[in-house]
């Protein structure tokens, strides 16, 4: 993960904020913008949370939870929201009020309790079987300023990447196809693979796609809906 720090503020105010933050008695006010950097992927409703350093909504190399699987395969964030709520996290859900379209941004404010020092984010990427954009437990800086974090696409490891129109229900094959995607996807593909031999969360290997909108092996359009990492940018202003 690449983290770029910009414009540290050296005012007495920020010194004061620092002193208070380091004494662990004060919440932080965060202003966050998530940008879909791609030109061909949609993000399902984004969930962002500040939580304790012990919490993770996913970890590379670990099996996905049922809640993560539901998000990665179908875009449902209710399960993740529940476990985060139970962990006393500070949560923002669905800042784009629906899909975050290609190249679009959504902004929101988040106030994190003093014990919720780490930030995580997840949203399914479409079209994909179980791909998601993720941030795993990024330490929120104590110093006021604006920080930029670039996010990669992960594979939940829970579903074969057949790249075919199908279901968003956990455990069911295929990709969910909400209305904006419907005219953009091909159909009648024969399927790229029916195997998912790496069942741990990993960096997504990317979609294969094909150039045939009515046949071929994939319903993904290879000249539009592939991607290179990073796929999202997170701009976090610590006030």
């Amino acid at each position, binding site marked *: 993960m690449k983290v770029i720090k*910009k*414009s540290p503020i050296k005012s007495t105010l920020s010194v004061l904020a620092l002193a208070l933050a380091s004494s662990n008695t004060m919440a932080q006010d965060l202003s966050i913008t998530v*940008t*879909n*950097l*791609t*030109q*061909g992927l949609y993000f399902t409703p984004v969930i962002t949370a500040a939580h304790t350093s012990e919490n993770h909504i996913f970890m590379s190399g670990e099996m996905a939870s049922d809640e993560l699987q539901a998000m990665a395969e179908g875009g449902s964030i209710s399960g993740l929201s529940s476990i985060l709520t139970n962990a006393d996290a500070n949560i923002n859900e669905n800042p784009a009020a629906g899909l975050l379209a*290609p*190249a*679009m*941004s959504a902004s929101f404010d988040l106030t994190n309790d003093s014990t919720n020092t780490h930030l995580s984010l997840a949203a399914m990427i479409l079209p994909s079987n179980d791909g998601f954009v993720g941030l795993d437990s990024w330490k929120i800086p104590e110093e006021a300023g604006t920080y930029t974090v670039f996010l990669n696409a992960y594979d939940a490891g829970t579903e074969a990447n057949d790249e075919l129109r199908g279901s968003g229900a956990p455990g069911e094959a295929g990709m969910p196809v909400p209305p904006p995607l419907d005219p953009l996807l091909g159909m009648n593909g024969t399927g790229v693979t029916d195997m998912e031999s790496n069942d741990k969360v990993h960096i997504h290997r990317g979609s*294969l*796609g*094909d*150039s045939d909108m009515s046949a071929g092996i994939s319903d993904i359009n*290879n*000249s*539009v*809906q*592939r*991607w*290179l*990492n*990073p*796929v999202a*940018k997170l701009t976090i202003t610590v006030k």
Partner: protein
Amino acid sequence: MLIFNAQNKSTKKLAKPLFIAGLLTLGLTACNDNDNETPPPVDPPTEYSYSVTLTNLTYAQPLSPVAVSLHGDAKMWQVGEAASVALEKLAEGGDSADFIALENNLATATAEGPTLPGASVTVNISTMDPQATYLTVATMLVNTNDAFSGLTGVDISTLTLNQEKSWRLNVYDSGTEKNNEAAGTIPGPADGGVGYDSTRDDIDLVGYHSGVVSKDDGLPSSVLTQAHRFDNPAVKLTITRTK
């Protein structure tokens, strides 16, 4: 929409001393409000010089002659906004003439030729303008429809003499031309086709590039081969303040 958050920063380093000196000697007021007027020659003007080195990290994507500019607080492109025509010409055809000529540029420089894979180029740029503290660099990956790399509106006002700063840059897509990789549409040596075409038949929003597919990876109508594929980052950029 091309310019974002354009504003004069009269508090940048040396801007204030110059301004005060102007007030004292000539009694001028508001002389700082106009970008196009150089401050009165009360002191020997301070020159700022930078050396910008760009390295092509790709396997087979020559980079068009790199365009470098210094300007006030503005961005020449932004993810989610439509590209300017000047950027479209650079991204589709590698032609930086209009991009360099954009009126908010306060100092400009271009490389004399393309930067081949594995090669580096250094461009020197100087300015007397204390407002010219934001950097933009742009170059096309010429074996593509409309891919470019660079950065824009980066504040370099805090660079001290001989200090350098580096970035590894990702690849943008200007969103102005479909990535069909078709014969006749790619200006680089892989095709020798048309560069700029005023028709906008893609998303018309700047975003990150999804990479080229090529005829070897499932796009039979592509003139590109596996060799033209690229990944992020594609460019390394280093700026050093030399004066």
